[in-house]
């Protein structure tokens, strides 16, 4: 009994230390967001003279106290853009991935597994390699500097298809057979039988996709030219210029940008873990 208790305490202590280490950058970000500029480079964890003024400055409600100029950041707009693009990408990716996953897991057709492997192999190609050709396609389609240029290319995902296929494979085939005997079409089986049963997988994919597109940086950077289309990560870039890095402002903006992600993660963490297990273990 004593031994078990000691083991528990040791595990608890170890996990507490690890937890603190992991949360330290987040805590530092939060604390720096309350520092005045003169303290921004201090390694001290807590601000000596805490201030909340960085937040209204980032939101463009007040001018920067040191330069007496408004930063001109469109924080609200960037927040909205990030959220709306993430919703669009999540919706389309979950829809297309689930349809593809259904075709790869429940329908029998010639070359199915070969096509699936080919589709899956696209995950092996690093994004930077295909960056210029993909961008060229966007130019031809006239999608540069538009919202749909961000949404449509991200609407299809080999990872999402793989994740949902694995989930759908775990649904007993007898269910579709029973539905088929009752005269259900593939369309009906997909919506009425498989999709409700694949709900945990769908939620996991939706959360992973939402989180991924919320923090996406490079593709929006290349695609967008107008500041009113910018997403949050691009907006943060505007605080790093030849006038210097406004660390305390970046941290205030980052703290506000991170908040929704943390809420989403805390609420849906069970599904996120499930999704990671599905994608990582089942091959």
């Amino acid at each position: 009994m004593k031994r078990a208790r000691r083991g528990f305490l040791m595990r608890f202590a170890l996990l507490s230390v690890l937890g603190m280490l992991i949360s330290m950058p987040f805590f530092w970000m939060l604390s720096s967001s309350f520092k005045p500029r003169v303290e921004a480079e201090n390694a001290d964890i807590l601000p000596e003279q805490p201030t909340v003024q960085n937040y209204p400055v980032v939101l463009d409600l007040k001018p920067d106290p040191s330069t007496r100029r408004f930063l001109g950041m469109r924080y609200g707009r960037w927040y909205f853009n990030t959220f709306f693009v993430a919703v669009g990408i999540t919706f389309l990716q979950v829809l297309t991935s689930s349809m593809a996953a259904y075709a790869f897991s429940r329908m029998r057709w010639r070359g199915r597994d070969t096509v699936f492997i080919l589709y899956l192999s696209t995950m092996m190609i690093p994004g930077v390699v295909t960056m210029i050709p993909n961008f060229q396609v966007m130019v031809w389609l006239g999608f540069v500097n538009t919202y749909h240029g961000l949404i449509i290319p991200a609407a299809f995902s080999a990872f999402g298809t793989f994740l949902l296929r694995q989930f759908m494979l775990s649904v007993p085939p007898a269910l579709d057979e029973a539905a088929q005997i009752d005269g259900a079409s593939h369309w009906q089986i997909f919506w009425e039988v498989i999709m409700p049963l694949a709900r945990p997988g769908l939620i996991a994919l939706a959360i992973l996709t939402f989180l991924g597109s919320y923090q996406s940086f490079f593709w929006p950077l290349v695609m967008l030219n107008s500041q009113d289309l910018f997403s949050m990560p691009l907006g943060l870039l505007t605080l790093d210029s030849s006038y210097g890095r406004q660390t305390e402002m970046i941290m205030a903006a980052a703290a506000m940008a991170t908040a929704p992600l943390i809420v989403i993660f805390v609420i849906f963490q069970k599904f996120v873990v499930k999704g990671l297990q599905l994608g990582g273990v089942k091959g």
Partner: protein
Amino acid sequence: MKYLFGGVLALFLILYSVALLTRDHKEQPGITSIRWCTDANPARTVQIAAFTRLNPTIEVVLDPGARQKLIVQCATGTGPDVIDMFNREEMVDYVASGIVLDLTEIARAKGFATENTYPAVREALTVEGRQYRFPCNVGAYGVIYNRAIFDDHGVPYPDENWTYEQFVAAGRRILDTPSKSGEKHIPVANWNSRLFFLDLLVGNGGQFFQDHGTRSALDSPEAIEAMRMYHALMHEEHVLTTPAEASAMGSQGGWGAGGINWFSAERAAMIFIGRWYLCQAPGYPALKGKLGAARLPRIGNRASTGLCGARAAGINIKSRHRAEAVKFLQYLATSEYGELIVRDGDSLPPNPALAQTGNALTNAFVGDPAFHQIFIDAVNAGRVLDSSPFISPTQVMRWLDERIGLVENQRLTPEAAMRSLAKEVNETIRGSLERRPDLQRKYQKVTGNAYRSDWWK
């Protein structure tokens, strides 16, 4: 499930409509929009507004794009119209990649030729005699120091003619003499290792290349000595923070721009920097009245000199609004633009007529003309870094950064670092010349000798 998907689709469509309807950037008839790729400096908004006042039919959209974005967009012919290049290396690369337009004739006709700016910086605007950019600002470094910290340690201010030895001695005294306030101070804030080293290199008479750019001069005694001085300042004299010390003190995961903030927060006594520091200084009101400036210390018997450069704008060769982009470059040479640079303290204006004396440059934060005069003198005495037509300067800089890191961390001696760097540069030049007939033709042109495979022997 269908209803859930339907609901999300409806939400998405509503958000999409709201996003499109509330966009504030809409095409306006009769207005041509050009894109200026630069950093997202708040001063740009003011500079753009002044341009729009002068040219009401041209709208300038600020594009705070990174280099990667520029490369991807220019590769597909959709890059920005006006491109800021922060140093000569960038320009040389863009010229080699066919990204920027040759401005020589247009600039001469429109009043923004190299003759319209400081003689010292002209070379930084050209490649093989052709002009590809015009300055947004021009600068060379001096030493900005905090008078209060010098007083606190009882150290006399640097004089106009100070030497490297006097500079080291001042740093040592700041380090060794207890201050009246009881505070400890860093003698010199190193915010950019490469630029600090390059100032030592130029100040010591060193250069990058010799023999028409066919050989590296980075293993010359001057260059090795410059690296030795850099190492000694850090590890023998301890007046410059080591990377480990900087990481321990700063919160930004290293020195970098953090060094500037350390100087601004009055933790460091001196900094090698340009007049553009005055753009940031107002963020630290306690500094007002405390800043002094001195020329870079003289090394040996040489006059004070350092690296001179410009953030300068060029035009995308594939710009669909070339005439409007040219107007923008013309604007950079005007007094309207130059006065904004003077007021903000953003280095020196491109038009030298606006920066004849320190008196012309005084601004709200530093009213002492002597402070500003230092930077005019620094630009006039400055030198542009030489380059070779046979190797990408960006590549050389990357290797130099690696060597500086190795010396800073005492993993290579200064001599070994510079010799290995020169060897790597020479081998690359040799390899490129061997492979590329266009470079062989260039070799013939610049050296006047026919290319032979054993040319380097």
